[in-house]
């Protein structure tokens, strides 16, 4: 849990550094997000006159909800202290709650950009959430559980065999993760161009410690999705609940390697493609939903379903 908070800015920094390198810029060091956060926390927060309490509460709500969601994901070992308490669907719900507050906060001040950002965010979310739920259904059909720990263990240890559903779910999950984290084909995390920004438009009015919480929340979300992909589809080297310290350390090392690889891949992917028009986003996410749904359907015709 603490680990996720410590690592999240590093991952964001890594992705930025990889992108800068690939564009032949030097770019800031990978530690820059930590410095940004520290600086923002020390600065005074400027709040618009028309802002209600919601505007001030939202950053903390978002950060807290995302943090709880991250704590539920098995990162380097299954059966971590919190992972018994809720399942994949609860994670989807927590993220949905965070997004709800973010959209409200975007509209709260009454600037037009915040409104645009909120409306687009909700449009994207309304397509991404069904896709994410389809992914959750497929995985839970395979593992007979919606607990991420158990899903991860069952994909690691039991003989699932060669299944096309798993590949389809992986692609669907990656598409959803790109959209949810405001990465490039759907949104650009580095832009402040009026017509294209989605996530940035919503946090435009924030400053100081509120902005720090918002950015920290976004970094945590990126780490969350990458951890889910790592835990479910690459459970290699994951430690179990009561393993020795050595095994835990190996698991931790494997986790760090996985996250680093994910960050490098994400950076390379973002550099190599262009941003889509906003109105193509539903098609993009529609295909994610289609893949998830198809994966669920195909599962019924596969080995387990045919009895």
């Amino acid at each position, binding site marked *: 849990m603490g680990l996720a908070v410590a690592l999240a800015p590093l991952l964001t920094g890594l992705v930025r550094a990889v992108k800068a390198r690939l564009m032949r810029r030097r770019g800031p060091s990978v530690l820059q997000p930590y410095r940004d956060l520290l600086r923002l926390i020390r600065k005074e927060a400027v709040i618009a006159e028309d802002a209600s309490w919601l505007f001030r509460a939202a950053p903390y709500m978002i950060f807290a909800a995302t943090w709880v969601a991250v704590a539920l994901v098995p990162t380097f070992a299954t059966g971590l202290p919190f992972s018994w308490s809720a399942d994949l669907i609860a994670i989807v719900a927590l993220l949905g709650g965070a997004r709800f507050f973010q959209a409200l906060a975007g509209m709260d001040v009454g600037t037009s950009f915040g409104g645009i950002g909120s409306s687009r965010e909700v449009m994207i979310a309304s397509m991404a959430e069904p896709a994410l739920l389809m992914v959750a259904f497929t995985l839970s059909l395979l593992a007979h559980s919606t607990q991420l720990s158990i899903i991860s263990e069952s994909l690691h240890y039991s003989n699932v065999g060669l*299944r*096309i559903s798993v590949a*389809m779910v992986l692609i669907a999950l990656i598409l959803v993760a790109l959209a949810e984290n405001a990465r490039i084909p759907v949104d650009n995390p580095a832009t402040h161009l009026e017509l294209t920004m989605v996530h940035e438009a919503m946090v435009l009015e924030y400053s100081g410690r509120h902005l720090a919480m918002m950015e920290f929340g976004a970094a945590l979300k990126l780490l969350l999705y990458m951890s889910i992909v790592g835990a479910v589809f690459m459970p290699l080297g994951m430690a179990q609940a009561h393993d020795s310290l050595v095994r835990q350390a190996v698991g931790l090392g494997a986790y760090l390697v996985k996250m680093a690889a994910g960050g490098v891949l994400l950076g390379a992917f973002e550099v190599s493609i262009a941003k889509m028009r906003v109105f193509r986003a539903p098609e993009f996410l529609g*295909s994610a939903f289609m893949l998830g749904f*198809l994966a669920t359907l*195909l599962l019924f*015709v*596969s*080995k387990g379903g045919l009895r």
Partner: protein
Amino acid sequence: MSGLDFDLAHLFAGLMVLVCFLMLYQDRLYSLLNTFAVHAMVLSLAVAWQAYIQGAPQLYVTAAIALIFKAMVIPIALHRLIRRMDLHREIETVGGIGRTMLLGMALVALSISVMLPVTAAAGTLAREDLAFALSIVLLGLLMMITRRNAVSQVVGFMTLENGLILAATGAKGMPLVVEISVAFSVLIAFIVIGIFLFRIRERFDTVDVGALDSFRGDRR
């Protein structure tokens, strides 16, 4: 039957359904043809794998026919057709692509839920193949319905036929004669449709079949 046998068969058949959806997703004629070639290639892989696990050498011939005619000859011929007739490259759809995809998913769900209870007595491999084959046939029909361009309707027809071949190989022991005659009938259908295309184009200067309706006097 060992696990891998079934898993690979499942993988190929599932891939065929997936490529069907990719075809529904395309909005350019050339990319549609390329995707169709991929579909035929996956079909020949699936058939070859069936030949291997059933120990049926005549199915290798089927796979070869699929690979040579469907994955190479027909797409290349259609490519040349498009270039010669100088068609414009976008595909006009009836209804949006998103709605077509949703409809397609409903069709897959339908065919699986219909096929599984009906074939309860058959072996797992045949059941799975039949369910997938029915959904591919339905998706091919859907493509013929939702495209206004005659070339993409031809592709829909060929997709449908791929689904039939998949069904036939899943049921053990299809005679080679049947397979060859099916292959040739498809070729003949292709030629007939090709001539038909030229005729439509000569008369109406377009391959949009909507033009036929207005010629007949239907008002939309």
